[in-house]
């Protein structure tokens, strides 16, 4: 077949809008995932069973179903929950909100495992010493354990961030126009699906390969400091 690469220039606005949605999803899911992931990790490590059992159950449940299945679940549950809390029956929750909730939930489960490992890499004597100095739980966690834990797990958190960026393409299944969705839509309209998909793969490759290279370099620098 003959290629028409000019189609990429012609659809650059649509593709850029899609990339902006991908990046926005990535940013929000990353921030939300790390925030709730930290809370989940602390709950899992808590000595209160009422916290640790539900947190463990949630993380194991999310980790044993496909990402797409989780998106479908939250896509279905979020509008129900929202109408329950706000009292407005049938209040419309957009696909973007549902997708964002799904991404934050799934990523918080993945990140909580990384953060839990990071917290457990800090010797137990340190929080005990902090308590002995009269610190409260939040002081000991916030000023002694977590800063060191986050530093230890930085490389693996960044690697997970690259995977998260790739996973944002899964919002295609609920019809959102992220970068892949935009390319797909543009391809259907113009009949130039081959060029657009090859271009999409190339762009994802450049971004993710560049990011993994940067993470690798960062790893080497951190290793020297230690």
């Amino acid at each position, binding site marked *: 077949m003959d290629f028409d690469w000019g189609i990429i220039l012609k659809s650059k606005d649509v593709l850029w809008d899609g990339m902006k949605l991908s990046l926005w999803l990535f940013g929000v899911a990353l921030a939300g995932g790390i925030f709730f992931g930290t809370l989940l990790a602390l709950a899992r490590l808590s000595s209160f069973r009422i916290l640790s059992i539900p947190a463990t159950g949630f993380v194991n449940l999310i980790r044993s179903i496909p990402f797409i299945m989780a998106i479908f679940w939250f896509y279905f549950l979020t509008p129900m929950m929202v109408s329950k809390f706000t009292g407005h029956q049938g209040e419309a929750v957009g696909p973007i909100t549902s997708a964002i909730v799904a991404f934050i939930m799934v990523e918080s489960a993945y990140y909580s495992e990384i953060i839990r490992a990071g917290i457990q890499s800090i010797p137990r004597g340190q929080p005990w010493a902090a308590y002995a100095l009269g610190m409260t739980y939040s002081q000991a966690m916030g000023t002694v354990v977590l800063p060191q834990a986050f530093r230890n797990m930085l490389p693996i958190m960044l690697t997970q961030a690259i995977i998260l960026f*790739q996973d944002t393409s899964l919002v295609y299944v609920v019809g959102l126009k992220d970068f892949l969705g935009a390319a797909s839509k543009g391809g259907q309209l113009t009949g130039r699906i081959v060029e657009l998909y090859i271009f999409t*793969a190339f762009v994802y490759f450049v971004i993710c*390969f560049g990011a993994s290279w940067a993470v690798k370099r960062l790893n080497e620098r951190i290793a020297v400091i230690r």
Partner: protein
Amino acid sequence: MDWSVFLQKAPSGGMTYLGWLASGTMWTLLVSIFAWLIAFTLGSILGVLRTTPLRIPRAIATAYVEVFRNVPLLVQMFIWYFVMPEVVPESLGNYLKQDLPNLVELPFAQFSMWEFTAAVICLGMYTASRVAEQVRAGIQSLPRGQTNAGLAMGFTLPQVYQFVLLPMAYRLIIPPMTSEFLTIFKNSSTALTIGVLELTAQSRQISEYTFKTFEAFTAATLIYIVITLTVIYSMRWLEGRLAVPGFISQAAGGH
């Protein structure tokens, strides 16, 4: 909640909705297992090549891993399914798209051998890059003296791999390989985007036909959990069976 929905007749050849779930489960298992065969074979070859002193094969294996790891699985799925038939000779492309037999036909959805093959190849080649990294890590975690001792005994390099390095390396990487194997079942759900009616797709279909979304998704979730637990326990059993006396088996220490 109304769980009897699964016993109702679906609007197609005498199947119940339970039948749809069973069919979805079967296709999830088939896609995943065939893809795993590709991933394990190709991944092992690539992983070994990355540790050999052969320069060009090593560079090829490294390039493979980087390309397949840094493009999202869904994009790869579309490349195999939509782009491949267009860039191969036209007659072959048409054959793939039109002439392959249908595997599943439901009233408003069907998929052919081509959707299944594209999904298996895509998932297999994607996972091969991850398996390759595990195999490489396993081989590199062995002391360098093992290779040297093998060579000093007069083994050729292929013999060193066959009799010295690989038997130990494969045992060491059973835990990370278990999680790759689990991931392949989960990732097989991306095949729904090209029309393969696997478990996630079927549960969505049931929810669309019956409006019993909660029941349909719960059933699929439970099946995924059963698959996950089955894999974890059988791999633990395998690890125990293959443990070399004198080496600490990770299976003994729990998860």
